[in-house]
């Protein structure tokens, strides 16, 4: 049981990193007023680009970088359409997800059989070698891939950037009241472009982590809706980086449970009372495919809970989200 929990926590950390990276990118983009529903497509492009680069060069760090870059390329299209051409953000985002899925299925079909040397497990630099011996949680939290540590470090950076740096505060202002920000001399266009590009880079990183560290292989459509869960996560987090951490680990745990569930049996012994009734139900609920629905169902429930609990006037949604901005010219 202890080894099961340790294994589960280990998988949780890796699954949570995917959501944390993608979610942070979405949070920054939405904070500046641009909804990005193309995360799933940007993740896929990052996952495939990173994977191919790693196969060709043998360097997973180079692959990770290419993944980030490709996510940003797709985000640039989104930024151009939504900011410069003032197109509908929902349509542009959904189509970029479709485009990313199509592109990676088209170009990725030949790479399914390839294998790579992805990110290795390592102890956290400086303190890891002492803390890794802590029972149950030690291995999970202090022996992980470099990208897991990177994601947690970036969360701190994002939090500081958004809430304590001038640029971050200007970005929030652009998402709340672009007219006012413009009057104050903040370039709405430039900051929105920057936010969307950063968001795309994070989505690409999330995809690259998925193919280079989490599963260390490439399968078309391997993101399996995680990009959409990241979008939901931002609402759950009420657009605040701190709550993002809790949400990412919560959903990471559900993702991990599905992967690890085969190794555990929760059925009652044949002589236990009610075994005849309970066991079939438990077996049904533990079927891999049924367990596969839990992360999605949980996302829906949590989303509903987050929205219902906070009355709409308290909801922290950026006021100018989905609104394109044009400067009044005479």
């Amino acid at each position: 049981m202890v080894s099961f929990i340790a294994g589960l926590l280990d998988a949780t950390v890796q699954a949570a990193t995917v959501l944390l990276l993608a979610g942070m990118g979405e949070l920054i983009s939405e904070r500046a007023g641009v909804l990005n529903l193309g995360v799933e497509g940007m993740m896929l492009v990052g996952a495939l680009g990173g994977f191919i680069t790693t196969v060709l060069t043998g360097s997973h760090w180079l692959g990770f970088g290419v993944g980030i870059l490709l996510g940003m390329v797709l985000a640039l299209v989104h930024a151009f359409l939504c900011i410069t051409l003032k197109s509908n953000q929902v349509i542009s985002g959904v189509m970029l997800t479709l485009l990313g899925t199509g592109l990676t299925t088209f170009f990725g079909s030949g790479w399914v059989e390839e294998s790579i040397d992805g990110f290795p497990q390592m102890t956290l630099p400086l303190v890891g070698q002492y803390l890794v011996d802590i029972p149950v949680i030690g291995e999970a939290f202090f022996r992980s891939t470099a990208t897991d540590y990177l994601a947690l470090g970036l969360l701190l950076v994002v939090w500081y950037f958004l809430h304590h740096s001038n640029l971050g505060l200007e970005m929030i202002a652009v998402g709340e009241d672009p007219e006012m920000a413009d009057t104050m001399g903040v370039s709405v266009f430039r900051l929105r472009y920057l936010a969307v590009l950063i968001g795309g880079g994070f989505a690409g990183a999330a995809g690259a982590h998925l193919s280079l560290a989490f599963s260390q292989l490439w399968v078309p459509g391997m993101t399996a809706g995680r990009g959409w869960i990241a979008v939901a996560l931002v609402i759950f987090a009420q657009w605040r980086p701190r709550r993002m951490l809790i949400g990412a680990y919560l959903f990471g745990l559900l993702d991990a449970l599905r992967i690890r569930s085969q190794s555990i049996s929760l059925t009652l012994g044949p002589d236990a009372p009610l075994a005849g009734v309970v066991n079939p139900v438990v077996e049904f609920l533990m079927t891999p495919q049924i367990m596969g629905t839990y992360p999605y169902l949980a996302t829906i429930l949590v989303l509903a809970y987050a929205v219902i609990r906070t009355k709409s006037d308290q909801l922290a949604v950026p006021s100018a989200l989905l609104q394109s901005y044009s400067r009044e010219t005479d």
Partner: protein
Amino acid sequence: MNVAVNVDAREDIPVWLAYGTPVFTVLAALAVSAVALVVLDVNPVAAYATMFVETLFTEFGLTETLTKAVPLILTGLAVYLPLKAGLFNIGAEGQLVAGALAGTWIGLNLSLPGLALVPLMFVAAAVAGGIWAGIPAYMRAKWDVNEIITSLLLTFVALEIQSYLLRGPMQGGTGNFPQSERFSEAATIPELVSGVHAGLLVAVCMVVVTYVLMTRTRLGFEITFVGSNDEAARQAGMSKFYVYLLVFVVGGAFAAMGGISEIAGAQGRYRAGFEPGYGFTAIPIALLGRNSAFKVLLAGLFFAVLFVGGSSMEVAFGVPAALVEIIQALVILFLITAEFFKSYRVGIDIDRGPTEAPAQPQGGDD
């Protein structure tokens, strides 16, 4: 010398632009997708020739196109109707799967004559698809929970349940494949003309029903009104709750009918992964045809040509049919680009005058 780009709103849209836009977007999408073919060392002219000639000028190609058009038109309507009320249903895929599963279950487990069984399968499918679509609609109408995310996430739930049923309770046929038992004669949708099943009739009827609903009834007017200005609609005493629920549930029922048509008309049994994402293609179809249900029909036919052509191309050149997905996405991305040029006039002013305006200090206010 100063160069300035002027963007002014157009007062009226020139005729050539209004009619030229769809043609331009499709051609641009095909041209850009050709780059993907070149990367894989395929001659794009030859590939597109196979794609369109074999589809449009052979009997096989035409019957295939009409067959594929059935689920595409119906799922297209499933996205179109909510779009009219200002909602995005990007979960038509899940509604299609939920409906197809329910209809298949009825088709395999009831023994009735075909005239009763096939309609019953459609009803069961429509109910299941309606319920599946009703969940995100209710959550949106009641609590304002974003329907885009929930409808999509429910697609993944439906796909997992499909996989569970076809590997477990509904598994049938020889071998251990994730598929159902074959349909009996009575549970199969009869042919309309040679090679095309009667599901096409259902699809066309639903297009007409949607058209009449949207243009000739008070309800259609309410849907459009809620979609264009929900606050004004509320003040006019219209129920947003009712409209939201209705467009989604009816849309889900449409998608489900598309699913059962494909299974009981074209496939003969439920196979896991029987369809290449009709519910996602439905989004570009609805966006392309968003002005009228008949345009959804046309867009559905066009994407059916792409689907069939994509498979011919895959066979002939060995390139993945996913090219079709790239084309679909590009069509809409170019469409929204073109819409900008439709509603704004972009001009470039080049001023060669000797007086150069002094650079404004940054952040300076007047």
